[in-house]
């Protein structure tokens, strides 16, 4: 038995343990899995929102949100063929982030203090304004206050109808729906009298059935479209903000807004929005 060697061995293992301990400590300091440094990304987008996020017959996704998602993913170092788009609805956006089935949600997702308790938001990448859409022959509704006593479409998980009936205390009758596409169908079928939501969403539908519907053009809120990521992913949030800044700086944002909404009468804002802040 060679005692010297045993001692030396103990010394080596102590050093190795220390080194491992140090490197492990360095890893655990990074916190929960971040979207930074990922090779692939699953991004939640809307599948039925014309102009923003829509699944085309071939299965591809297209829209302003989808293009923003591609740009941000590229800035995060993810190759285009390594992005998987996952359809989400207004009602599922928090859940899919919390259970980890998507890494990022870019789906007309307004930043609200309540949602911020569950999700970390990068951006906003655009500030939309809530407005109201009615049937083209309806001239009685000129502002959101005229919705009093009317039937308003309420999409589950969306914040828009709450702005009208709760925050502005306007007593409209709520008719539930699963999506804004359903709302438009109900509006045309005269099952509801109005849809109140973000001007970008309304513009997408108005472009499709422009003679049948009318946008009231009385905006009344700031809807800050955020990029939802898992709660607490600070470095991911900071990286997303850098990407959004860059998107406005290099003219991509202006080009994308023009591409998707240039033909509508919407006033497009091509200045970088005020970020929410990550911490």
């Amino acid at each position, binding site marked *: 038995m060679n005692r010297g060697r045993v001692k030396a061995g103990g010394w080596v293992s102590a050093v190795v343990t220390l080194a491992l301990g140090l490197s492990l400590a360095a890893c655990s300091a990074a916190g929960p899995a971040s979207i930074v440094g990922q090779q692939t990304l699953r991004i939640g987008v809307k599948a039925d929102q014309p102009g923003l996020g829509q699944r085309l017959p071939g299965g591809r996704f297209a829209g302003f949100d989808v293009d923003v998602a591609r740009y941000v993913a590229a800035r995060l170092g993810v190759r285009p063929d390594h992005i998987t788009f996952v359809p989400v609805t207004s009602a599922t956006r928090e859940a899919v982030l919390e259970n980890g089935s998507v890494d990022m949600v870019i789906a007309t997702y307004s930043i609200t203090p309540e949602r911020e308790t569950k999700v970390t938001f990068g951006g906003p990448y655009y500030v939309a304004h809530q407005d109201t859409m009615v049937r083209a022959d309806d001239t009685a509704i000129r502002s959101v206050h005229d919705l009093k006593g009317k039937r308003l479409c309420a999409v589950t998980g969306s914040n828009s109808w709450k702005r009208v009936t709760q925050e502005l205390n306007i007593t409209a009758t709520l008719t539930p729906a699963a999506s804004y596409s359903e709302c438009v169908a109900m509006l045309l079928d005269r099952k509801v009298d109005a849809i109140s939501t973000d001007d970008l969403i309304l513009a997408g539908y108005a472009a499709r059935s422009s003679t049948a519907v009318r946008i009231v053009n009385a905006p009344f809120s700031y809807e800050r479209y955020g990029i939802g990521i898992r709660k607490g992913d600070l470095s991911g949030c900071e990286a997303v903000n850098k990407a959004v800044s860059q998107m406005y700086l290099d003219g991509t944002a202006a080009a994308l807004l023009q591409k998707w909404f240039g033909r509508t009468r919407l006033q497009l804002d091509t200045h970088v929005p005020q970020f929410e*802040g990550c911490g």
Partner: protein
Amino acid sequence: MLVTATSREPRRWRPAGRFGRLGLQTTPGRIRALAAVAVLVIAGFYLVASIAVGNARDGLRVIGHDAGPQVLATGDLYFALGDLDSQVASILLTGRESSPGARQQQLRRYSQDRAVANRAALQAAELSAGDPADQAAVRSILDGLGQYERLASRAMVLDEQAHHPAGPPPANVIAVYRQATDLMTLELLPPAYNLTLEGGATVREAYTAKRSAVSSGRLWVALAGLVVIAALAALQFFVAARFRRRLNFALAVATLGLIVLTVSAVRLLSGEAAHLQAAKTSGFDSILTMSRARAISNSLHADERRFLLDPGRADTYSLAYLDKSQTVLYVASADLSEYYTALGASMKAYRANPQAVRFLGFYGDEARAHPGPAVSAALSRFQQFQADDQRIRQLAEAGHDRQAVMLLTGRTAGSPGYDFDRYDQAVVSLIGQHRATFDQAIRAGDRELGRSVLGNWAALLPLAALGAAVLIVAGVWARLAEYR
């Protein structure tokens, strides 16, 4: 381990092999080898220690002298810009009914804000030298500021000509003010705020990387110091045994010096890690949080004014008011009246037990991280500000617009304007406390890095390593000379 191998050396009969070729079978060869090992491990110690000290210096530079001050400068810029627009709204809302003194005061504050904004923008420009994107942002703010001032002046001139009673000015004034406030909200405030956030991100990144590098550097320095001391001790014992002398003076001095150096380097790094932590978590984080809270609170006050000033956009300003209030202090609530109630309940619980922080938002973070009288004072004045807001909105809703305007624009004791100023003072003094902690920690970190037996640590480390190497050579030189 070379040390253990050579210390089992006395078996002289071992045939000359690999060690033989290096001259290790002779005493002078072994002394030379041991001395070389000692010098090498000293070089290693020097490397490890200077990396760790360099990390501490980098951390202090970014947090204390670079991104940190940029965050403070752009925070001031954001506040001054927001306040500029708020003062314009106040002037337009008061109309002809302001006393000459009050008008003077409003105009004085307007020019003060303009001066602060210009100064802060220039400072931000200086600090952003080298970052083209940041410079572009500062430039666009300065350009926009000129344009804003022209619009604001025009609105104020038209307003004076209209000679209207307190309340909403005529449509032509509102139209110009809308242009001004939209320019401010869409083009001036966002880049200023984003610069602040970006500086905050840089500080967080530097802190995460440098603080853990300094703490682990401390362990590596301790380890390297132990190896150096062991190597020197081995050399000392070998020489003592071979030459039957009690002590090699030069080696003993080198050993003692390195013990002192290791201990003080470890102490320095512990201190630096603590200073970095204090500067970041007790200073910087709260300064950033509370500066944002202050700026957004100020824009809440401005939204009250705009709500009464521009009835066509009253809904927008009310909704924005609720969103911003919840950003500053979040309690679950669907509308403003629920917010007032929930705020009252959670403040009552908080006063009964300051550990029971049942709210989120900026104040939630601050009250949890740094409970104490300063944050409690700011909170109770925030509550008063919200209670005043409720009174103003109730008057407006009941159709008493004029009374609402008079209440809001008053500045006498107990009026909403007075309460808001008192609230703002409480926030400023809270920020001041954290600022003092921050400055103190950065100063202490700088001082300790610059203060050692031989002055600056950056100078001390190479000198000490070189000195130790010289002492080793000197210590073995005389012994080796006996063989010549």
